[in-house]
């Protein structure tokens, strides 16, 4: 059962220099209880996808095409009040740098209760508090935190509180956008464990967005690699890692230093990411590909994901080179 199905999502931003096509024809689905990873570098569109899922894109951003079917309902066409019901109790999100978005003058518990009141106006304060304490237990926070102010907490604690906030209205799907970027690696490890535990205990689906493929490798069942607004490779995480087809995916894997295994020479990409203004449907990666074939160089093939094996797709342009 797919909790989320994204079909041909297109989103662009209007800017002073032109229309930036941030998300181009993106399709993927997430099953119940599954953990789905979205990996790519800055500007690839992964955060734009996350924002579109909750219609939280900036004022100058617009979904120009596509469907987002959550729990059977297409949420693209919904109006603001209908969307508010989906947000937080259907899909919730942990933003990048969310731990810094706590209101410094309100206690943590009160801020979480505020969110709960929006969605459960009939519940009493005690019921909400009890729920929050349960959540704190799951994410590994002490009970006393509920009455503390944000500045009294460390970075790791604040981030855990953010996760509790995201869980407070019993969502079915959580989007986590680089939730551990500013944290130390030891704390990051703990938070990732918490997230995994939460997923198991509550049966949640998770979309995990990151530029760090190591985290994606450990946290996700299925994944998609994004470049310049499109998905270039997608599938079961194990299969993508053991048999990467797209040149960009291969480059990502080969450019990540690791502390295990033999010390090997790593690869890197030349050139700069492309402009996303007025793009055509042909592969935007071709000018950076280390081993382009003729179709690639002449930009003959339009981008389209084709099946490599079961649960593994890649853009047809790049399948046979590199």
């Amino acid at each position: 059962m797919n909790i989320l199905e994204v079909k041909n999502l297109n989103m662009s931003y209007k800017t002073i220099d032109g229309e930036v096509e941030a998300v181009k024809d993106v399709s993927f689905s997430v099953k119940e209880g599954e953990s789905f990873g979205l990996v790519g570098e800055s500007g690839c569109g992964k955060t734009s996808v996350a924002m579109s899922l909750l219609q939280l894109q900036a004022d100058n951003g617009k979904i120009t095409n596509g469907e987002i079917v959550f729990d059977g309902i297409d949420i693209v066409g919904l109006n603001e009040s209908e969307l508010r019901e989906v947000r937080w109790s259907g899909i919730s999100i942990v933003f990048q740098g969310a731990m810094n978005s706590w209101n410094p003058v309100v206690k943590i518990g009160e801020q979480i209760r505020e969110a709960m009141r929006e969605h459960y106006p009939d519940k009493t304060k005690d019921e909400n508090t009890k729920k929050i304490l349960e959540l704190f237990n799951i994410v590994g926070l002490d009970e006393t935190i509920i009455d503390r102010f944000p500045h009294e907490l460390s970075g790791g604690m604040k981030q855990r509180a953010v996760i509790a906030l995201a869980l407070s209205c019993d969502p079915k799907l959580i989007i986590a956008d680089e939730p551990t970027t500013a944290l130390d690696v030891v704390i990051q490890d703990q938070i990732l464990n918490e997230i995994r535990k939460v997923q198991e205990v509550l049966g949640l689906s998770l979309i995990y967005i990151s530029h760090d493929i190591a985290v994606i490798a450990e946290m996700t069942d299925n994944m998609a690699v994004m470049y310049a607004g499109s998905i270039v490779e997608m599938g079961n995480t194990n299969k993508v890692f053991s048999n990467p087809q797209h040149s960009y995916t291969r480059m990502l894997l080969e450019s990540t230093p690791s502390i295990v295994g033999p010390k090997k020479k790593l690869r890197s990409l030349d050139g700069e990411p492309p402009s996303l203004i007025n793009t055509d449907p042909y592969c935007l990666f071709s000018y950076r590909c280390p081993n382009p074939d003729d179709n690639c160089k002449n930009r003959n093939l339009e981008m389209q994901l084709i099946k490599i094996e079961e649960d593994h797709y890649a853009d047809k342009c790049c399948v046979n080179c590199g």
Partner: protein
Amino acid sequence: MSNTLIEVKNLEKYFEVSGGLFSRNKTIVKAVDGISFNIPFGSSLGLVGQSGCGKTTTARALSLLDPKTGGEVNFYNKESESMQSIDELEGEELKKFRRNIQMIFQDPYESLNPRWNIKDIILEPLNIHNIGDLKDREDAVYEILKTVGLTPPENYMPRYPHELSGGQRQRVSIARTLIMKPKFVVCDEPTSMLDVSIRISIMDLMLNLAKDLEVSYLYITHDLAVARYMCDQIAVMFNGKIVEIAKTEDLLNNPIHPYTKRLISSIPIPDPSYNREQYEVNFEELDSIIANNSESKAMIEVSEDHFVATHDVKGLL
């Protein structure tokens, strides 16, 4: 004697923090609390640790930006062929000495003056030290731009930083840093703000230049994997002290200190089939090593060039 370029002994950097408007008490923050290491010529040392451990403070002290509050820093003096303390330098001598040390910063967006063009930015060190005549200087800028991969140089020289990408800006920083052919470069996480796909190209550039120009690096990072790629030795810092220092592979394959072990075990591995074991902090091994060592020194040598600290971190972990 050896080919040691820089010798650091018990470096200390303390800050005084006043206890508030009405308090007479001044707390002393020991950002760097007695660290020691040596870096040979043409070799690199990675300083790894989490935020607040004191690595940036160390970097600033070693690049002579902020004066240290204690300890010795000795630099190899070519003329006298001996190690000379930097404390003895001042005035003109100090200025001349600064040619030997440079620093590359983390933020590509803030480390270049937005009002200067690329040519002037790279020219500045030559102008400050009055090297050669104008033509020589411009030629040097041209050459170094080619070396760092910003070609054709004519296209880059009149441009301004905001027109370049993050990776290009770091190359400009590297060009500016290395145009004086320093012996020692402090690198403060120079790739952490860059896209993953271009990090390696910048790191490879730095490695190649290090080999060609015989430059030693002090490479500061929170990422052990990057330290492994870039450095010959690695020092792990925690709370202002070095807890373990060893040659790179030795540290990764045979960590002794519980903090090091914990750090290593927390790093995610880019391989979904790899089973990473979580490390439960265990001080027994360290305690037994300390007990077996009769001399009570701050750092104990457990094997060749592999030192472990003995100070107490139990309460903190």
